[in-house]
């Protein structure tokens, strides 16, 4: 019967066809032999795909991985984390400061103030070597001017309830001002100047210079229009000459200005706006010099110039308009965010973009005209594998070259002769944060006791297999800001009970802690998908229950956790992590002004001394002074324990042993060097020198 034969033959044939394909596929051993090109391709795996290949718009780590190879900033950090010039060859930081001439006041010598007298008075003091003017290079007089401005004012509450807003036209009479050029940024310049001028600056009333809306305008609004005194830190970058974009166009100062404008343009919705908002203007001085003027003192802003520079000639208004018309879109609303550039970027970095298959891979090819010399590897492939176990298996099968191991795998893989491994401290720390708006957590003794009850060393030893280090405060241990004299909280459950007893919490008949008949009970939250946080949560719950604290736990999905709980301050205690910046600025995370909904001081930490320090730290451009203040701040935060600071994780990366660095001697003979990690554990600092050899060329090290 034919039907019967078909029924038997069909599955047999199909199965045979499928299975025979095995013989055509290279095994791990043959892989390199059959395809020599494989050695010139470096394959990196990632859990997630990139979303937008534009450094000014990307907010995810996968996009940043690619952007950092295709684009380059003006500066970056060298192996010791100090700033190093890239597209900028060198730079200077100085300050321009302004002060209004207020002719209603008198000088210390009793004469009424005029612009000339004030200038002469200060020049005389400078010539006499007055310490207040030590840094001043030059004092100039700027004439006053008048202009008309539209401002929005709030009209006091009406019967209808909501305060109304309306636009008011005012005339601003900008008075003559003195401009001081300082050789260094000095946040105390006006304090010193004020004492020289007997409080002159404090007495200036800016409302005097605004005409037309006196009854409704506040002093602060007036000060925003006519600041009595103003610090303008300046960064002067001298750019590298002859650097080419990957399409052959030369990079110049216009591209720097353009990148700044692209970030600040509201239609682009750039997530980098907060980093660049303190910039007042970016002024090209010729092709190879750029002057960055800041509105106010903001030291962390300098590091933001590591941002990749966009090519103006490919993204300017005309190009976008042409692109919009070609695609039939409205040219008025077509922004950089819409441009096809974001999926086929061109920068000045060592690798040029070649191909992107969404959720599969991104292919980069080396840029032969890279200013620092062409990379050795021909291709960089960024492969997306969403599942960790699968990613591990591709590493064993030789179809990826690097693997970021999880702590529990370290013991098994660390000594494998096939791999080289790099284990270094990272920048992210894990903490338990307490909501200090809740009465139970207002007492520092309670927060301290909760921290003392947790055996952090045990978590590090057993949960993280020693792939983490204890931390005591909010700064990276690799930087000078970290205060090594601060001791971690001891593990001491007995001491914790004593502290709680001091705070009024005592054990009741059932063994639960209570105060005035109320039990010590709260909920500990964390987000879904982070195994380490989950483990910390279980350990903490266990430890606290042992003290007699009723702890409930809840794991929530990220978006809900952030939007519904963290942003609204609706939680008792939570486990989270911060990835620390390399700058000393903690304003957003710990300043008491940042406690509102949707702000980052969601635990509600407030300490006047810490507040003052945080402001001074972000305004301080002198490294030594900044370090000193940061260490003091670290100490205060550690004393107050708004968080229980737990640990900083280490990153373990495994590489195929066949990957090494290769540099050529002047006579052209190759010389092989081991790959080394920098202070942050980044191994790709010398990525351009990497090669893959068919056999390991260096002895195990």
């Amino acid at each position, binding site marked *: 019967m034919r039907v019967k034969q078909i029924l038997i033959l069909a599955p047999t044939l199909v199965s045979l066809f499928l299975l025979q394909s095995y013989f055509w596929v290279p095994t791990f051993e043959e892989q390199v032999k059959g395809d020599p090109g494989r050695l010139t391709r470096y394959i990196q795996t990632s859990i997630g795909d990139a979303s937008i290949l534009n450094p000014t718009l990307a907010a995810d780590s996968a996009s940043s991985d690619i952007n950092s190879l295709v684009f380059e900033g003006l500066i970056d950090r060298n192996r010791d984390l100090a700033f190093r010039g890239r597209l900028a060859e060198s730079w200077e930081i100085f300050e321009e400061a302004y002060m209004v001439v207020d002719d209603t006041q008198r000088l210390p010598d009793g004469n009424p103030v005029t612009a000339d007298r004030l200038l002469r008075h200060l020049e005389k003091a400078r010539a006499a070597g007055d310490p207040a003017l030590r840094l001043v290079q030059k004092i100039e007089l700027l004439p006053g001017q008048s202009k008309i401005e539209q401002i929005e004012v709030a009209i006091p509450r009406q019967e209808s309830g909501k305060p109304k807003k309306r636009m008011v036209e005012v005339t601003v009479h900008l008075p003559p001002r003195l401009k001081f050029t300082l050789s260094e940024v000095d946040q105390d310049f006006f304090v010193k100047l004020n004492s020289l001028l007997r409080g002159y600056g404090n007495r200036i009333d800016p409302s005097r210079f605004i005409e037309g809306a006196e009854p409704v305008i506040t002093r602060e609004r007036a000060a925003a229009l006519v600041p009595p005194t103003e610090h303008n830190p300046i960064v002067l970058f001298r750019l590298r000459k002859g650097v080419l974009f990957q399409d052959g166009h030369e990079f110049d100062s216009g591209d720097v200005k353009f990148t700044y404008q692209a970030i600040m343009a509201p239609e682009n919705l750039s997530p980098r706006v907060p980093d660049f908002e303190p910039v007042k203007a970016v002024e090209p001085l010729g092709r190879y010099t750029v002057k960055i003027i800041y509105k106010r003192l903001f030291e962390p802003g300098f590091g933001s110039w590591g941002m990749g520079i966009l090519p103006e000639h490919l993204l300017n208004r005309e190009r976008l308009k042409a692109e919009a018309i070609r695609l039939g879109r409205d040219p008025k609303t077509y922004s950089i965010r819409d441009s096809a550039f974001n999926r086929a970027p061109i920068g000045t970095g060592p690798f040029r973009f070649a191909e992107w298959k969404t959720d599969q891979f991104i292919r980069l090819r080396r840029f032969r005209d890279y200013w620092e010399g062409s990379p050795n590897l021909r291709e960089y492939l960024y492969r997306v594998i969403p599942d960790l176990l699968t990613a591990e298996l591709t590493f064993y099968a030789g179809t990826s070259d690097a693997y970021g191991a999880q702590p529990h795998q370290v013991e098994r893989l660390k000594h494998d002769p096939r791999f080289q491994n790099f284990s270094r401290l990272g920048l992210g720390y894990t903490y338990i944060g307490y909501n200090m708006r809740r009465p139970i957590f207002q007492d520092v003794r309670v927060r301290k006791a909760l921290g003392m009850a947790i055996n952090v060393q045990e978590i590090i030893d057993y949960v993280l297999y020693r792939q983490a280090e204890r931390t005591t405060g909010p700064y990276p241990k690799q930087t000078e800001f970290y205060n090594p004299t601060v001791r971690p909280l001891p593990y001491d459950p007995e001491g914790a009970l004593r502290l709680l007893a001091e705070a009024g919490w005592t054990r009741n008949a059932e063994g639960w802690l209570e105060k005035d008949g109320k039990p010590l009970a709260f909920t500990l939250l964390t987000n879904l998908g982070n195994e380490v946080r989950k483990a910390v949560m279980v350990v903490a719950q266990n430890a606290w229950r042992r003290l007699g604290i009723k702890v409930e736990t809840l794991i929530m*999905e990220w978006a809900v956790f952030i939007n519904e709980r963290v942003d609204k301050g609706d939680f008792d205690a939570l486990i989270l992590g911060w990835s620390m910046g390399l700058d000393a600025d903690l304003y957003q995370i710990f300043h008491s002004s940042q406690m509102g909904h949707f702000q980052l001081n969601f635990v509600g930490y407030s300490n006047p001394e810490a507040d003052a320090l945080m402001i001074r730290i972000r305004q301080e451009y002198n490294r030594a002074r900044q370090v000193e203040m940061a260490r003091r701040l670290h100490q205060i935060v550690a004393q107050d324990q708004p968080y229980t600071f737990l640990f900083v994780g280490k990153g373990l990366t495994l590489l195929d042993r066949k990957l090494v660095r290769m540099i050529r001697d002047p006579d052209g003979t190759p010389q092989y060097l081991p790959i080394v990690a920098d202070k942050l554990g980044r191994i790709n600092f010398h990525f351009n020198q990497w090669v893959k050899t068919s056999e390991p060329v260096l002895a195990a090290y």
Partner: protein
Amino acid sequence: MATLTESRPSEVTVSPSRIAWRFFLRNRTAVAGMLACVVFFVVAVLGLVLTKGESPVLNPRQVRLADKFKPPLSLPNPQAVPAEDLPRLGIYLLGTDDLGRDVFARMLEGAYVSLLVGFVAVGIAVAIGITLGGIAGYYGRVRIGVGRLRLMTWDTLIAGLIDVFLSFPSFFLILTVVAVLKPSIWNIMVVIGFTSWTGTARFVRAEILALREQDFVQAAHALGVPGPQIILRHLIPNAIAPVLVSATLGIAYAILTEAGLSFLGFGVPPPDATWGNILSDGKNFLFDASWLTVIPGTAILIVVLAFNLFGEGLREAFNPKLRQL
């Protein structure tokens, strides 16, 4: 109504199910499946008794970091673990997990939670299925009107609804809804229930369509018994066989779906342990602690297989066309 029930022809009430039962007992794989299901019930109830409460007999939440990743049948280390934390049994029957929790206790707890998920989800699905199937079967030809307009019959509406639900890839739909609602044990049960009633509804509808024309229903109708009462008291009890079949298979489906959701990170969240989330947590340690996947994986396999075989046996036993041999 009692008189009416008694006046039913006896073949209709008793014999089909008894014949089916006898037939079912002859199918040894199905009986084995049923027995396994019974064992699972007992284990789940034991799990509830032994692992719930503030100080349970076997504590699935006890963390002993020093004793993590102990393979099955290993002894605890009394030096490193405080005496009050040692397992009651004195041995880790099924080993410990990455936090040193007793896998045996966790599996017991998980048995109860997994069964609960299956039961509630199926309960919801069956309730919806019976209601809609019953309406479609009994009132099938009645038209629904808006004002004067007679739009469509109940049967068309419900058949349409079934079509709509069958059109969605159910796992993806469940994933979507669980993800947007946030994964909690109740959400998962409700969502699985709300998306898997179509089978029951179709079976019930077909069964009631067949029964509706029978004499005892016609008689009840002639006596003026209201429709809902006829459906509830006379039709549903006679259509229970297909409901039972789809409920049994539904539990298997719910347990598996929960495991799949756990794998994608949208399963029943801790602290509730289910076999699904024990399995998917264990997969991170496949190379380092294989028992963390082998044990829950095998347990799910056995239980789901048991429900499937049981359900399939029932299906065959209740299908008169297949019974004659």
